[in-house]
């Protein structure tokens, strides 16, 4: 090559390049930019993911219709079955809301099932029941909150790793529940509690109403309040949160307390459904809650997640359970399918439509 070419200076390309791609420089205005920015944004990312979960739900219903066409031809059955699914999702759903907060905040709570058992058992001791439904509800909530607070103190001020602290609590709280209940099933004699599971409000089961209320509160708390913002900050980058003046310890404490409170509510809902409580209740709820949060798009490493996604995750699981029971299949095969679904959901999330997004935007650029 000639020296001239090699050292060819300066800008010959500038004019031509500008002419070739007008309006496609980086400083695109708010026209194209704003349009694209919605479906590139986190909100749209979550929306896509939630749409995916809704797709899974629809598919499950279709499988139900195919396998049990005569049941699905009965409108009343369909309505009742839907309520059954929602009711089964209610207690675990409430717990999952708390779990989602903890995970977004960079932690994990393995003790939720055990807290529920302890709260349920404590709320149904003869002594507590002597105070009536009010006493039971109060005890359930306070025990849940109290155990959550202990978790929180151990983790934020005792500097225990969340996994270890709540693992220890999981073992300890179940042990205490067994101790209190003497390993017996404690029957609830409160009419109010026992009726709650079958009661309806405006035609909707009360437990479902509670789930929706907790979900809605959780959504507002996460997306519209400073508490939610702090949760995301603490989970996303602890050091940045701390240097921005956020009291990380106090906030972490509150997250576990919140999870504990949700467990208290969930325990009362389960007690109402079974009209009894025992130390073995809510078995493995921690795994279900974590799994639901994760397939709902909550990042296990913290800093990201949605309530809606987590609740959709819960619904997917309870719909699967329902599908198996109306087809009379075993719980073993059900667990297998659950496992497969978790893996599939996470794989789909990792794919995250990235390739598609890039492809579309490139085409757009070429067209313009």
């Amino acid at each position, binding site marked *: 090559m000639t020296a001239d070419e090699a050292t060819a200076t300066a800008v010959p390309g500038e004019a031509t390049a500008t002419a*070739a791609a007008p309006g496609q420089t*980086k400083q695109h205005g708010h026209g194209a930019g704003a349009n694209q920015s919605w479906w*590139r944004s*986190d909100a749209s990312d979550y929306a896509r993911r939630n749409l995916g979960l809704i797709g899974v739900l629809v598919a499950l219903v279709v499988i139900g219709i195919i396998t049990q066409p005569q049941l699905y031809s009965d409108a009343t059955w369909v309505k009742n079955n839907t309520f059954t699914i929602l009711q089964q999702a209610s207690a675990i759903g409430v717990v999952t809301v708390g779990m989602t907060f903890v995970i977004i905040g960079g932690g994990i709570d393995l003790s939720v099932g055990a807290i529920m058992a302890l709260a349920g058992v404590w709320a149904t001791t003869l002594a507590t029941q002597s105070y009536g439904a009010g006493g039971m509800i109060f005890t359930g909530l306070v025990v849940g909150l109290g155990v959550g607070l202990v978790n929180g103190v151990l983790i934020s001020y005792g500097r225990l790793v969340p996994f270890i602290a709540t693992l220890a609590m999981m073992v300890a709280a179940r042990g205490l529940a067994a101790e209190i209940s003497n390993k017996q099933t404690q029957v609830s004699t409160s009419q109010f509690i026992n009726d709650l599971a079958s009661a309806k409000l405006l035609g909707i089961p009360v437990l479902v109403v509670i789930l929706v209320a907790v979900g809605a509160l959780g959504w507002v708390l996460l997306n519209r309040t400073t508490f939610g913002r702090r949760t995301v900050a603490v989970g*996303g*980058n602890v*050091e*940045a949160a701390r240097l921005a003046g956020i009291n990380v310890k106090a906030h972490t404490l509150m997250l576990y307390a919140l999870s504990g409170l949700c467990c208290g509510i969930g325990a009362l809902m389960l007690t109402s459904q079974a009209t009894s409580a025992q130390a073995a209740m809510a078995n493995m709820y921690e795994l279900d809650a974590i799994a639901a949060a994760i397939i709902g798009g909550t990042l296990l490493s913290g*800093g990201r997640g949605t309530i809606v996604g987590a609740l959709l995750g819960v619904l997917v699981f309870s719909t699967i359970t329902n599908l198996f029971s109306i087809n009379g299949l075993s719980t073993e095969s059900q667990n297998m399918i659950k496992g497969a679904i978790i893996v599939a959901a996470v794989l789909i999330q990792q794919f995250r439509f990235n390739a598609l997004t890039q492809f579309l935007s490139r085409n757009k650029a070429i067209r313009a």
Partner: protein
Amino acid sequence: MTDSTTVSRGAQMADTDDRPVVLRLTDVVKTFPGVRALDGVQLEVRAGEVHCLLGQNGAGKSTLIKVLAGVHRPDSGTVEWLGEEVSFANPQAAMKTGIATIYQELDLVEDLSVAENAFLGHEPRRFGFVRRAQMARVTREILGRLGHAEIPPRRLVRSLPAAGKQIVSMARALSHEAKLIIMDEPSAVLAHDEVENLFRIIRELTAQGIAVIYISHRMEEIREIGDRVTVLKDGRTTAANLPARTTPTRELVSRMTGRTIEYVFPDRPPADASAEELLRVEGLTRHGEFADVSLTVAAGEIVGIAGLVGSGRSELLETIFGARRAEAGTVRVAGRTLRAGSVGAAVRAGIGLAPEERKSQALLLGEPIYRNVTLATFSRLARVGFTNAEREVAEANRIADTLELRPRDVHRAVRQLSGGNQQKVVVGRWLLGETRLLLLDEPTRGVDVGARAELYQVIRDLAAQGVGVLLVSSEVPEVLGLADRVLVMREGRVIHEAPGSELDEETVLDLVMAGALMEGAAA
């Protein structure tokens, strides 16, 4: 104008002209959703030269080198490397062919040792086992070459300061048999003497025929080490192969920005002796970091701290802010003693800290820009616990305008911003709200010439409104040009104090290195 530059270039380029071209990029385009980061880039690099890339924040420099390093794949255009057209599937592929890269954002594994990081992905092995002893030995050798024999190869990277980490990423690049080494703002975290060290190494490398692509926003560095310069603007090459030493700064800047910017500091107002004292630090000590530091900052005053990296400056700021707990000494703000080791107390007292390391200490990368800007103020903007997104966006927009954030869309994730623009978010956070005392740790790290002038003006304006500023910077001219009063730190102690106008760069460097004037000047 074209004529005259051609002539001067001809004279200057004579020594590199005959060297073979090793890398040639033609019309490279790379788009991200909604952004054309590269929009037709031309680049030509010869063996044994230092080729500088210049461009404003967000011009596409880092994206370009990521294309070269196999991190991104170009949408179109060709990359010719050693005479062959290549398309790297991943960074390993690029490394194998001899392209080593030091990224702008450090990419070290914090919980691995220095040696493990240096050899990450290409550990020396025998029978499938890593030869740890050999790895440590070679790492020690490389660190020695880098002038940092004191860094133990087996130490965890997490425990190193920012500059130490930069050395480790350099060691990583040198651990390859590279024919091209790309350095994306390597000097941003380095102090003056470290930069000299870096240049010495670069000269050694180029003498062996290794080509270097060097990115920096500091014009003096480009003059000193560069052979040729390619300028990017909005993802396009606006000037190629200009001689690095002789092209006038004015021309370079106008190629970068499309306008001319004077690289000046805002005027210093006369010292106001009546200004009330805002910060008083007395006898502050942390073992091994700094000892017996006393200083004051008055309202409306900018106090600069000069010193080498490792002289305890960042640690001092973090301790004043309560992020580290002092072992002795007190921090008083407007007469009130701050609770030691409590960031919350410091923030409530109106102190803000823009930390040194944006990625690990300051940013929520996945969150929108506006939420990062308001991270320290969203509670104050909220109504009874409910966040006020509208006001947050409005405030963030204001900051984005003052600091020329690009792209200007504050709903974007911070991750998508270029390094310099991320830095503006970090500093911008504390320009909001009721900050009375601003602690700035390397505030212009990675910020381009134009935005830097804006930032200086913003800091000066804040001071004019009565905010006290305590500024740490590795760039001595910045400290001298901006600060009313300058403290010089060496090995954890304040050894000299003088008005900024009475010091010059040479004196400060003498003090910083040798402590020559130490006697009699100690605070």
